[in-house]
């Protein structure tokens, strides 16, 4: 009897353990901390930047890191730390805006073609094959070349190419979920397709997409700063990590901090997103 009561108490234990397990993982916590702080810097850079990022001081050109300028100053005497911090706004915005529309479009299209299959799915399949044959960066640069440089056009370009990856993932996951009888049960219960797709299948299928989204935000920052570096994304004097690295390129042997510090910011933010995605994968995995 004691065995029975034991297993019963186990079964009725409150189900908060998953969050507790996730929170106990240092990686997830570090990831959340990095992204949380990065978001704070992005929202209110003025609170953290010691100087005006665009204040030019010809008396303090290319100074090495010091107490007054922890990240040194650039070729126009602007405070490098303030510029890296103020770049958070635009770079974190990239992470969000370059991916969120791709996420929404991709999830919707993927769920629909996965659910209905048929001709639309075949056309989609060929389209995906065509898109993923090209390297991502080449495609995005091609679209930017057509639309013209600038942040908005860059978001449009990344979204136009990026949604395909979300859709592909979502489609596969929806098809896998349809193997479970609850989707058929929804049909025989007389629910509409929209209800089955968006209320039943989508929440069960979206976990890998969310995890991919986290990595994709890191990639979006990388891509955005690559375009900034190439002069196709953010335009100087806008402080943006890729732009900052490009500005420091000519002085890489004499003023290394100009390129290094924005690079560190890119790595750190990317790491944050990856760690957070990893933790979310554990947190969101459907319970058996």
């Amino acid at each position, binding site marked *: 009897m004691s065995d029975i009561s034991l297993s019963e108490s186990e*079964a*009725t234990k409150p*189900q908060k353990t998953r969050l507790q397990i996730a929170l106990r993982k240092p990686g997830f916590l570090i990831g959340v901390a990095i992204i949380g702080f990065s978001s704070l810097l992005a929202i209110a850079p003025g609170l953290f930047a010691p100087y005006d990022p665009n204040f030019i001081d010809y008396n303090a050109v290319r100074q090495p890191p010091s107490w007054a300028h922890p990240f040194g100053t650039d070729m126009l005497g602007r405070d490098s730390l303030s510029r890296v911090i103020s770049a958070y706004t635009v770079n974190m915005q990239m992470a969000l805006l370059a991916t969120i529309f791709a996420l929404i479009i991709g999830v919707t299209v993927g769920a629909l073609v996965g659910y209905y299959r048929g001709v639309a799915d075949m056309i989609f399949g060929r389209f995906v094959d065509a898109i993923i044959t090209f390297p991502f960066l080449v495609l995005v640069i091609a679209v930017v070349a057509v639309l013209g440089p600038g942040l908005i056009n860059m978001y449009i370009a990344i979204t136009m190419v990026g949604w395909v990856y979300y859709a592909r993932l979502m489609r596969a996951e929806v098809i896998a979920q349809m*193997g*479970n*009888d*609850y989707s*058929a*049960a*929804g*049909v*025989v*219960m*007389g*629910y*509409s*397709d929209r209800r089955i797709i968006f209320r*039943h299948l989508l*929440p*069960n299928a979206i976990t890998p997409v969310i995890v991919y989204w986290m990595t994709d935000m890191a990639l979006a920052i990388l891509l955005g700063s690559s375009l900034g570096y190439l002069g196709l994304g953010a335009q100087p004097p806008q402080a943006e990590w890729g732009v900052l690295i490009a500005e420091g390129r000519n002085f890489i042997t004499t003023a290394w901090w100009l390129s290094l510090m924005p690079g560190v910011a890119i790595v750190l933010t990317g790491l944050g997103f990856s760690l957070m995605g990893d933790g979310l994968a554990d947190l969101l995995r*459907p*319970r*058996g």
Partner: protein
Amino acid sequence: MIDQKPILEVSNLCTTFRRGGVDLPAVRDVSFSVGQGEVLGLVGESGSGKSVTLRSILGLSRRYGDVTGEVRWLGQDIASMPERKLRHIRGREIAMIFQEPMTSLNPLLTVGMQLTETLKAHTDLNRAARRDRAIEMLDHVGIPSAASRLGEFPHQFSGGMRQRVMIAIALAASPKLLLADEPTTALDVTIQAQILDLILSLADEMQMGVILVTHDLGVVAQTCENVAVMYAGRVVEQGAVRQVLGAPRHPYTVGLMRSVPQNVPPRTQLYSVPGTPPSLEALPVGCAFASRCQNRTERCLTARPTLDAITDDRRVACFNPVAAEKAGAA
């Protein structure tokens, strides 16, 4: 019961799936009817088309394959009915439960949400009434402390309990017909009996017809009034349970009955029908059972026997049916 006008009439139902350019005739020319409060058994081995037949009735198969024939529900053909109209029949008038209780509930929604969702779709009850009805249904299917379990997720229930929840959801809108696709196969034996008893007592109480798909002849014998035996997508024998199982005429039914262990001494080999069913991709021109049949003649290999009435409610698809007396002994 038999004199009554049937609520569901299936005639010449054919379902064909197409895989890689090959047509797979999963269901062929299946016809049967179910009266109000009648329990019909659909038996056959795996792949004989039982489940596909059931899924074709509610229009699940037509999404993946080609379905022809008529499915008349209270007089109207639902096989050709558009989805939008069919939605009002699904769940409200005809409900279905599945074999695998572990996956037939949405793991992310609470049991209460899934129960009230059906009620919201098919009744005019308000929020509070839906909740009361949900508790009442859970209570009805034998889930203890129903009210407190509404907020729990499917993974907090055992297999048998989930099947009870599934039944509660299916029956919440008081349907007139329940399609049960091997509802007890995934459960252990003691729970199987409980779930069957539950389905039957609820069917009796609600005057609800049931089509019970199973491969367990014992279950059929205990629970059904009529039975249809399927083989390779076709009904090979059909009639009242007492007659079909008591005095089977089709050699396949005879074989099935012989495979049920009865009074066998320990450590003896159990009987099984020799051979395997033909692949759907390569069905023979003649009778699909011919290669495994002991009564086979030349004719069986070249022509397909039709399902013909041998007595009033008894149909057999065989050129050389087993004689009634002989079958009785088998």
